[in-house]
C-alpha cells in the first residue's frame, strides 16, 4: 500500500512546463497554414484619357476579334484574311508574332455582347506569351 501511495502523490499535478511549447506549436501551426485572401489577377495599364492619338502602322497590329460564342478571329494588319482559332492556339501564334516583330501590338476587340470571361481567356493567352503591348477595345461593327 505504501508504494501505491507514493506514486499517486508524485504524478498528481498537471505538468505545466510544456504548456508554453504546446502554445508555440499551435501558434506556428496556424501561422504556416493560414491562407490570406490575396489580390491577384491580370494587370494592365489603361491608356490615359488625355493621351494623344498615336498612329500605328497597320503592319504592327494583330487583331484578335472575340465573338459572343467564344470564337476568336485573327486579322493581321491590312489584309482582310481571317483566321478562326481556339483560345489554346493564341499563345503559340502570339509568340511567333513577337519573335517576327517585337513591336507588334495585340489589339483585343471584344464584341459588346461577348462574355467578359472570353476576353480574359484571350488576355491570359497573350500574357502567357509575354506580350507587352496589348490594347483592349470594344468591337464596334
Amino acid at each position, binding site marked *: *500500500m505504501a508504494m*501505491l*501511495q507514493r506514486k*499517486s*502523490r508524485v504524478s*498528481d*499535478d*498537471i505538468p*505545466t512546463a510544456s*504548456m*508554453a511549447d504546446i*502554445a*508555440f506549436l*499551435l*501558434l506556428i501551426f*496556424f*501561422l504556416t497554414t*493560414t491562407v*490570406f*485572401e*490575396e*489580390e*491577384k*489577377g*491580370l*494587370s*494592365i*495599364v*489603361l*491608356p*490615359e*484619357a488625355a493621351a494623344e492619338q498615336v498612329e500605328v502602322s497597320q503592319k504592327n497590329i494583330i487583331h484578335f476579334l*472575340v465573338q459572343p460564342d467564344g470564337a476568336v478571329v485573327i486579322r493581321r494588319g491590312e489584309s482582310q484574311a481571317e483566321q478562326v482559332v481556339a483560345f*489554346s492556339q493564341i499563345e503559340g501564334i502570339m509568340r511567333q508574332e513577337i519573335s517576327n516583330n517585337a513591336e507588334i501590338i495585340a489589339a483585343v476587340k*471584344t*464584341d*459588346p*455582347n*461577348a*462574355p*467578359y*470571361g*472570353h*476576353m*480574359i*481567356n484571350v*488576355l*491570359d493567352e497573350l*500574357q*502567357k506569351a509575354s506580350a507587352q503591348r496589348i490594347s*483592349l*477595345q*470594344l468591337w464596334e461593327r
Partner: protein
Amino acid sequence: MAKKGGPFERKSKVEAEIPAASMADIAFLLLIFFMVSTTFRREQDRHLTFPRADATQKQDEKRKNILHVWIEPDGQVYINDRLVPMDMVADVVLPLYRDSDRRLLISIRGDRDTPYRFINSVTEQLREANAVRVFFHTDLESRLTRERR
C-alpha cells in the same frame, strides 16, 4: 471518493486546482495570433464567378491602395458596397484616386458572364478618372483543368 483517513486523502488536499499560471501566456499567444492574422473585410462578398487564368499574378500593392470595382452580370457596378450608376464611376473614383496619392490600383472584379460592353464602360470611366493602373481579378487555373475544358 476517498474515505477520510484513507490512503488517497492527502493527494486531493494538495492538488485540487487546475494550474492557471500559464493560462495567461496561452491567451496572449492566441490574442497575438488573431491580431496579426485578421484582416477585416471592408465590403461584403458579391458572390460572383471570376474568370480563370493561367497567367494570374499576385498584385504587390498595399491593401489600402487597392480599390475593388465589382461588376455584376446585369451591369450593376458596386464600389465600397454602394451601387454606382455606370456614368458616375469616374466621379466616385477620382476623389479616391487623389486621396491615395495617385497610387490607386483598381481591382476589376467582374463576373465571367458579364457582357463585355459593361467592362468596357467601366474601363472608359476609370481612364476618365486617371486611374489607369488596373488588374482584372482572376482565379488561378491549372493547366489540367484547362485541358479538360
